[in-house]
């Protein structure tokens, strides 16, 4: 196997399909690497040796029989642990689902199996996808492979870390307010948050249903685009799934940006405190301009309210979604004297501090006397944020901002102040609230050697523009040739 473990998903598939190597051998090699590095990184919660080897053996049998192989045949992939996998523990990194074994596969898992992908295991995350540093996992802290004392970002921190550290070429995460983009930026990889409705959430454990999307993560824009192509599409089991054709996202990577109008949110970029992030975003803009894109100034005057709006809407929806965890049908039960006490004891013991805090905030925002002042008001301001983008897209095709205000912060740096942690999401929240497609891709390293990500946002279902522009950024100032330094 040439270039192990850094070869791309395309290279692995080609080697497997051409018979240069068996899928079982590829899988064994990645399983061994996961065994070796997971004690240091804690990015996997479950490594599924048996299932992975069985899936790989199936790919080898199909190849030997001369059958058509799927686009991800023999390619190892990691799944965030809020995606249901039949027969494999799915915990959401929560004690309340610590032993939960789903009786069915999520839609994206079915799509991956059909594509020949080999599911290596389930990745660590902030409990129920609530967090921006992965420190809300009830099992272990994930470490950033570029600097082990740094956060990998969240909530899909395990998926980002596993991909960046070469434990897998591909991973899936979920993104409610930035949960694939922010960890991708922190770990130096690419992630796409598809348009709301582009990827079916059937089998994704719900956090905030008007925002949740499943997103691909990879070390290159092309691989992320390929993974999007495999999982995108209509599924009637998710009522919000869009009944629209998908595009050829891999082909879009080769399209270039000639004539593409890139909207630059000048005040957000100039207002950055972190000079390294500012320089990274400027480098991305130069790369785009050099390849024929035109830069136009746009503004998002209401983006500054996104933190308030998001943390009211998302917590309100979460308080409702998480009502199902009551110790009756699945998961943990802590018995009490009566039914009510069984509920409250189970939930008090089963949920960690951040999940409890968000359930409290959401319940408060929806409660009698506060609904209009908080929840409804947030939904009205959400309209203003959406209109900002409508206006911006009159003069541009994609909007460019940083993904995060700073490179990866230190583990422990923000855990004592929840509001401080929320404010780190300021750039990823507005496109989520508007349901738009967004990509984060690396655009350089900080002075201290930490990755920096740039975010590009496109109108609904225009993921193809993100693939084209992301590819140009990767070619111009990406980190495809750089390796995480902490593993040397």
């Amino acid at each position: 196997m040439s270039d192990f473990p850094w070869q791309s998903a395309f290279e692995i598939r080609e080697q497997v399909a051409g018979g240069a190597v068996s899928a079982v051998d590829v899988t064994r090699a990645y399983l061994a690497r996961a065994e070796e590095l997971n004690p240091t990184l804690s990015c996997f919660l479950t490594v599924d040796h048996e299932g992975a080897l069985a899936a790989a053996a199936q790919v080898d049998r199909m190849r030997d029989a001369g059958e058509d192989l799927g686009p991800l045949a023999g390619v190892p992939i990691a799944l965030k642990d809020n995606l249901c996998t039949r027969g494999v523990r799915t915990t959401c990194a929560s004690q309340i689902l610590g032993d939960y074994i789903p009786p069915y596969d999520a839609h994206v898992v079915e799509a991956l199996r059909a594509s020949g992908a080999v599911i290596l295991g389930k990745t660590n995350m902030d409990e129920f996808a609530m967090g921006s540093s992965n420190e809300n996992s009830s099992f272990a802290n994930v470490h950033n492979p570029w600097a082990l004392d740094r956060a990998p970002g969240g909530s899909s921190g395990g998926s980002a870390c596993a991909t960046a550290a070469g434990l897998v070429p591909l991973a899936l995460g979920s993104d409610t307010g930035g949960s694939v983009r922010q960890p991708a930026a922190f770990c130096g990889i690419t992630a796409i948050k598809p348009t709301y409705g582009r990827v079916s959430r059937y089998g994704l454990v719900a956090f905030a249903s008007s925002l949740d999307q499943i997103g691909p993560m990879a070390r290159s824009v092309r691989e992320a685009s390929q993974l999007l192509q495999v999982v995108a599409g209509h599924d009637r089991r998710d009522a919000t799934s869009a009944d629209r054709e998908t595009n050829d996202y891999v082909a879009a990577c080769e399209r270039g940006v000639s004539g593409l109008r890139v909207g630059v949110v000048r005040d957000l970029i100039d207002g950055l405190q972190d000079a390294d992030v500012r320089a990274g975003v400027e480098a991305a803009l130069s790369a785009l301009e050099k390849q024929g894109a035109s830069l136009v100034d746009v503004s998002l005057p209401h983006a500054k309210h996104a933190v308030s709006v998001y943390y009211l809407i998302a917590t309100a929806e979460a308080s409702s979604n998480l009502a199902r965890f009551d110790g009756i049908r699945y998961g943990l039960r802590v018995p009490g004297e009566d039914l009510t006490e069984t509920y409250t004891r189970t939930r008090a013991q089963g949920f960690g501090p951040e999940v409890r805090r968000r359930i409290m905030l959401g319940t408060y925002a929806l409660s009698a006397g506060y609904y209009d002042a908080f929840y409804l008001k947030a939904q009205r301001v959400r309209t203003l944020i959406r209109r900002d983008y409508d206006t911006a897209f009159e003069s541009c095709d994609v909007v460019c901002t940083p993904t995060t205000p700073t490179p990866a912060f230190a583990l422990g740096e923000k855990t004592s102040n929840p509001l401080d942690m929320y404010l780190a999401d300021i750039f990823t929240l507005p496109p989520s609230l508007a349901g738009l497609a967004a990509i984060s891709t690396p655009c350089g390293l900080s002075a201290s050697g930490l990755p920096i990500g740039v975010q590009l946002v496109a109108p609904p279902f225009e993921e193809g523009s993100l693939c084209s522009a992301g590819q140009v950024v990767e070619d111009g100032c990406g980190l495809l040739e750089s390796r995480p330094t902490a593993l040397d």
Partner: protein
Amino acid sequence: MADPKITFEQVLHVAKLARLTLSDDEAREMQEQLDAILGYMEGLDELDVSDVPPTFHSIPMDAPMRPDVPQRCSDRAEILEQAPESESGGFSVPLVLEVE
């Protein structure tokens, strides 16, 4: 604390609504944290949005209709295997009503 956004009593009331039990210490810490968050959210008050319609769905879509076709559902035994307690093919819960 001068004029808190949320009082200790409100925290206990909301915890009850959310079916969470909090110790006094936990409730006090929760009050401080929620107070800071709600204080920050007062920034929304600078906007007059009384005439702005709410966005409950970011991408407009109609509720899709599908043909009503019977299908096999999941296997009962497999589902009950995940239940903390089950009995006679159903979920078992603590006694809710006393029956003579």
